[in-house]
């Protein structure tokens, strides 16, 4: 089953905004093409064009060299094109099996769904990822009861159950842990060998170089480079994506001289913190320290940050500057000068339809009196947006008009306005383009030099190693290892993440 798909000079506008002005992509049987680009470069739009979710404004799609026009996702699916969506397309109140087979349920002669057969077929699909998720994930489990990584797996299985000729993986690895990514890549190799064509959309360079055969780089809606992966270096790819040459170097807190200010006073002390997923965490963070939190997805990192911020109930003791605190609501934590950048900016960090101003000021309105001093508020918001070099049409523009990286700047900016002592960051660079990432690294370094304490969870191991003085690795709700200095290596980090016990106390 040989197949080829070409997208030629694709144009797509949303209202007045041009998302794609000249998008190009070629993919053939038995190869993986990486679709690369910074946020807002048009990657997601490109995959939506291929799978028929959006209507093109210009250009041509050729399937097996014949022009095609998809009137709906259904039409694209009939042609053998399946997509693993970045924003999951699952119905949470339905079971795993119902979700995977939706619209293709096996039927009995009576027209009724053959659920037994459907469950068997689901079991067979789940076997592809067996061992990488918890055992109680069954075909009849409700999707609402799944963890994010498990949902992503279901999403992948849903796409592959179509037995597509062309498979689009749109940021499919973003919420998977390394074991699951490993399994996915094995499967991708198998699918490649079966003659499937695969489009791989990702921010992670390392993954692109591992799995892709060819690349296609988008920049500002234009395809600026295509070719074989083996002919290009990581640096060149980044350069293609970022226009101006901007090779970012991770800047370790005090660039070698002052390692984490060991003599600074302890800011935060956690003793035996226990929640639904945490099983007794103890740690200390000094003022001006940038403490990394590592580990596989969903090992309690999120709970740790949320508990510290007073969003979820916990047992154990938390001390701030020696004083025992017990927050029952985030606003109490905010009063003690804590700030949280949550893991899902769309669902937890932003008010999408409200203005940038409203988003910046949301935690701070109390400080502006009654009636609110709007001039002052605007001036303060403008100062922050300049400090973050936020690209926007104006403070009154809705956040929904911003690209991913810029939207994330708003999430961080709203806390800068309050000047907290301690930042809790839940994977803040997830789905953010390299330029913005580099800016964030600079900002974090700056903040820690100002004496702010930072707890920084990242799903990107390189980031932790490059940026942090000390990294704790969580596994199954416990601290598996504490890495610093010479022991802070990628090997140790990965080993500890997987629960292999060799990363000891340093």
């Amino acid at each position, binding site marked *: 089953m040989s197949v080829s798909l070409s997208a030629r000079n694709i144009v797509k506008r949303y209202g007045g905004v041009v998302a794609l002005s000249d998008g190009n992509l070629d993919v053939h049987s038995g190869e993986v093409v990486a679709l690369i680009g910074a946020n807002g470069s048009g990657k997601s739009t490109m995959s939506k064009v291929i799978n028929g979710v959006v209507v093109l404004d210009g250009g041509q799609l050729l399937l097996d060299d014949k022009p095609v026009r998809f009137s709906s*996702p259904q039409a694209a699916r009939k042609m053998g094109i399946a997509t693993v969506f970045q924003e*999951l397309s699952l119905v949470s*109140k*339905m079971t795993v099996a119902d979700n995977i087979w939706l619209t293709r*349920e096996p039927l009995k002669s009576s027209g*009724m*769904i053959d659920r037994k057969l459907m469950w068997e077929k689901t079991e067979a699909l789940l076997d592809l990822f067996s061992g990488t998720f918890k055992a109680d994930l069954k075909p009849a489990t409700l999707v609402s009861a799944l963890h994010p990584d498990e949902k992503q797996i279901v999403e992948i299985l849903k796409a592959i159950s179509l037995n597509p000729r062309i498979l689009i993986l749109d940021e499919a690895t973003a919420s998977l842990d390394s074991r699951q990514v490993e399994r996915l890549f094995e499967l991708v190799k198998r699918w490649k060998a079966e003659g499937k064509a695969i489009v791989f959309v990702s921010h992670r360079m390392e993954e692109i170089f591992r799995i892709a055969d060819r690349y296609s780089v988008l920049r500002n809606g234009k395809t600026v480079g295509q070719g074989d992966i083996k002919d290009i270096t990581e640096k060149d790819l980044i350069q293609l994506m970022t226009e101006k040459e901007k090779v970012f170097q991770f800047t370790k807190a005090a660039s070698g001289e002052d390692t984490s200010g060991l003599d600074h006073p302890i800011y935060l002390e956690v003793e035996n913190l226990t929640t639904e997923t945490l099983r007794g965490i103890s740690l200390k963070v000094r003022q001006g320290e940038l403490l990394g939190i590592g580990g596989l997805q969903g090992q309690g990192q999120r709970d740790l940050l949320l508990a510290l911020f007073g969003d979820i109930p916990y047992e154990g003791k938390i001390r701030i500057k020696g004083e025992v605190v017990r927050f029952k609501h985030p606003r109490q934590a905010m009063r003690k000068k804590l700030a949280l950048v949550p893991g899902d900016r769309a669902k937890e960090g932003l008010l999408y339809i409200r203005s940038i101003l409203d988003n910046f000021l949301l935690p701070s309105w109390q400080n502006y009196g009654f009636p609110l001093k709007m001039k002052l508020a605007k001036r303060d918001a403008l100062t922050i947006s300049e400090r973050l070099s936020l690209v926007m049409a104006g403070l009154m523009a809705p956040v929904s008009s911003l690209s991913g990286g810029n939207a994330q700047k708003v999430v961080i900016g709203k806390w800068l306005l309050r000047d907290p002592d301690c930042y809790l960051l839940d994977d803040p660079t997830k789905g953010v383009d390299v330029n913005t990432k580099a800016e964030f690294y600079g900002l974090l370094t700056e903040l820690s030099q100002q004496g702010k304490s930072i707890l920084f969870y990242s799903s990107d191991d390189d980031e932790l190693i490059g940026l942090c003085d000390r990294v704790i690795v969580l596994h199954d709700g416990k601290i598996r290892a504490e890495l610093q200095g010479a022991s802070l290596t990628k090997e140790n980090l990965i080993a500890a993440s997987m629960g292999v016990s060799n990363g000891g106390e340093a």
Partner: protein
Amino acid sequence: MKRFSWDEMMNRYPAFFAIILLVVALIINFILQPNMFARDTLNSNMRVFLPMILLAAGQAIVILGGGIDISVGGIVSIVNTILATQVGLNGSPEKMWTFVLVSLGAGILAGAINGFFIAFLRLQPIITTYATSFLYVGFALFILPNPGGGIPAEIANVYRNTTPLGLPLAFYVIAVVLLIWMYIRSTRFGNYLYAVGGNAEAAYETAVPVTWVLFSTYVVSGFMAALAGIAITMLSGSGNAEIGVPMTLTSITAVVIGGTALSGGIGGVAGPVVGAITLGIIQNIISFSRIDTWWETFVKASIIVVALAAPGVINLLRRKKV
């Protein structure tokens, strides 16, 4: 971590709470009215409940699909006025049959109008069906400005007094409705309904024909409202353009008491049917308990609020324990 949550339980047995409520109501009613299971009493109760049962079943389909239909009462009114004016007190059974079909057609058409605005023009269901409810009640008033007219007593009596095998006619109608629902539930359309109500965007991306599914829920609701209109006309024997108006909100209450969430995608039709019966029995209890007439509305409304609040209270207590 065990994943058999309350959510999942409510997902599998959405009518669970409604049935408990029904049993409690039945027991109280039985104490107050010991002959309630006698053939005649049972029949006279069930024939009163049936219109609301039909209405609630249709409303449940719309709500499952993530919408709401405020216009069902208006459709009941239209059907009632059509029958009362066109068949007349001296009409023949043939005429009745003809206008029953016309009524069903009117119900489907009214539902299709709702569906067109909501599914195809993407308007918000509450406000759209609120607007059409004005259209429909207005139209019913246009047909029959003042209460009057009706259908022949003989035809009404067929509805009132038919008890095959000694069981009320309503039982057979309920059985047919539930059987059809059980079949639909296990077809693809049933799955589509839950998918659209649960997450319309995801359903669309998965190639579920969302627009048509939404549209069809309103058509079904219009059809069921027409059936309810026919039933209530046979029950009352007379015409009144305002007859359906108070039924709309009751139908929604029945659906919610029946464990079908207004947010869509959770629940079923059996629960709302049970809910509608329960509401009827509560009314019975109140009339039999000989409370002061002035207090009736208050007591009834309070019972309904308590019934609506009960699952929430259980949830709250459950969460406190964990």
